[in-house]
């Protein structure tokens, strides 16, 4: 099933751009991705029914993002999973720009894990508007390696795929990493059990032989919902782990302290020469800047989101930085403030000193319930983000995790998520909500669904890595 066995046909010739002589998926440099990519015509978006009474499996939605199309802003296809109960969450490509020079490899297959089920799906997107489920790795095969709760999917060199796993086979600690080969078979466990305790997201920068992983908690802790007792008992993470990428060993652990509780998404700058990046500490409402200096890695708080008083809350509402990304030109950082209801844009030309450039309010506890006149109400705040490769269109969905949604935004399960979009002006550092674009995940044949991560067929700002 390796893509190398299936040379490109005329049907997917669209997947190839003029790559100036190189073979393989992706782009030679981040700047080439900006210059050579076409505007995204479809988005792949996770839709889920776990955590509702809708009797249907989770699905991968194909959303039309071509403004010239008659179905712009609509779900034009859905790939249903074979089982209920997955909680599809994050997903990734079988290949990215890190395999840019690997002849015969295609960015064609999406690896779509179930966060609760530990089942791993493989979806073939050769027909971009009509993708097809082609393989399922059942949970038992994952549990054999004493791992569960798959999260972040990155392709790694040689066509292999690495998935961060948050728990052991029982949903307890430690987590680790599962490796798949280029035929999408489980190759084994990438790490040595016990290298780390908690796990969540990770990103690697191969030119510096480094990988950084973050921490959520044991699946059995975060799965049922958010409980402050668990925070007080120290069951949530606050560390970053710095790995020797080739050796697969932890070389340094950074404790972010009380201001770095629950470090989630890890985003290096895209430039392969950079040793800078950001991680959002969700619970303590901060963004940390991490960097290498003199052979040591450091992480400093760079952005602090102040809590806000709310009439219906007993205590100030904390900012919850749940997702963040860096534009392909490494100039802007965007993050979602899920509880408050805004998405922010920071100039990070000087990564140690981010400057707030602009923000948009939509939904959440402080944003407008009805940000687009004449369209449906928005429940939940901005959450998973994705930016076009040229940095001019920012999209987001509103669901975090089904059980956590039910605690903080119970209406979202009943009304479904939305997907929204902002037009970005990178030159002026501004954003404007697109009044013509709202994808309604509340209006589907089986019932209202939640929407989570977003990916583009030609790679995106939250997955592409350069060698």
């Amino acid at each position, binding site marked *: 099933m390796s893509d190398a066995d299936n040379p490109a046909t005329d049907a997917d010739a669209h997947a190839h751009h003029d790559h100036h002589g190189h073979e393989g998926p992706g782009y030679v440099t981040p700047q080439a991705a900006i210059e050579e990519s076409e505007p995204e015509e479809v988005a792949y978006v996770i839709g889920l029914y776990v955590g509702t009474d809708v009797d249907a499996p989770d699905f991968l939605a194909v959303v039309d993002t071509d403004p010239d199309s008659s179905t712009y802003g609509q779900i034009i296809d859905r790939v249903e999973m074979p089982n209920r109960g997955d909680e599809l969450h994050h997903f990734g490509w079988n290949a990215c720009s890190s395999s840019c020079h690997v002849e015969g490899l295609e960015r064609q297959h999406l690896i779509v894990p179930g966060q609760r089920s530990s089942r791993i799906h493989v979806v073939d997107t050769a027909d971009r508007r009509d993708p097809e489920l082609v393989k399922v790795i059942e949970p038992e095969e994952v549990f054999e390696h004493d791992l569960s709760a798959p999260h972040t999917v990155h392709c790694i060199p040689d066509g292999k795929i690495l998935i961060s796993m948050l728990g052991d086979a029982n949903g307890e600690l430690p987590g680790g990493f599962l490796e798949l080969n280029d035929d999408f078979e489980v190759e084994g466990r990438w790490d040595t059990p016990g290298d780390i305790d908690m796990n969540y997201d990770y990103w690697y920068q191969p030119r510096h032989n480094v990988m950084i992983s973050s921490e959520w908690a044991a699946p*059995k802790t975060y799965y049922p919902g958010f*409980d402050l007792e668990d925070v007080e008992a120290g069951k949530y993470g606050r560390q970053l782990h710095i790995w020797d990428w080739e050796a697969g060993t932890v070389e340094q652990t950074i404790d972010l302290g009380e201001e770095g509780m629950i470090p989630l998404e890890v985003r290096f700058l895209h430039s392969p020469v950079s040793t800078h990046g950001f991680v959002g500490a969700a619970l303590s409402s901060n963004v940390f800047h991490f960097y290498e200096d003199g052979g040591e890695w450091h992480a400093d708080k760079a952005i602090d989101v102040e809590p806000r008083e709310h009439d219906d809350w007993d205590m100030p509402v904390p900012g919850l930085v749940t997702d963040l990304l860096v534009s392909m030109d490494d100039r802007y950082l965007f993050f979602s403030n899920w509880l408050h209801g805004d998405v922010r844009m920071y100039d990070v030309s000087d990564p140690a000193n981010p400057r707030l450039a602009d923000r948009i309010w939509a939904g959440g506890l402080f944003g407008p319930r009805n940000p687009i006149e004449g369209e449906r109400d928005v429940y939940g705040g901005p959450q998973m983000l994705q930016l076009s490769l040229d940095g001019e269109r920012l999209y987001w969905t509103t669901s975090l995790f089904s059980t956590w949604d039910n605690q903080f935004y119970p209406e979202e399960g009943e009304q479904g998520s939305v997907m929204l979009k902002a037009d970005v002006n990178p030159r002026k550092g501004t954003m404007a909500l697109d009044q013509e674009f709202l994808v309604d995940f509340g209006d589907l044949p089986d019932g209202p669904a939640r929407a989570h991560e977003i990916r583009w067929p030609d790679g995106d700002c939250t997955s592409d890595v350069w060698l």
Partner: protein
Amino acid sequence: MSHALTFEWADGRTARVDARPDETVVEAAERESVALPFGCLTGACATCTARLLDGHVAYRRPPRGLKPDQREAGYVLACVAEPRSDCRLRVGVDVHRELVDNPWK
């Protein structure tokens, strides 16, 4: 021997299925095409939380997703609970929602 399971939803709907020996509540419901919520099927995620109103269950695997006080309050994890008698259970996603509320509100 098999045991009769009666499910009750918040909207007043009910269903009855027979659980075979060594079947969990979720397995029995799935076999008879009665949709109960579930996630991990290993007792970790609590998506399948039900409230045991009558009867007894034994756990195939430890119900890790429930805290001790939640178990004492009568909540059970239907994915790893095997009936040991006829049982009456309150089911549906709203049962799980009772376990956790907004801790700041």
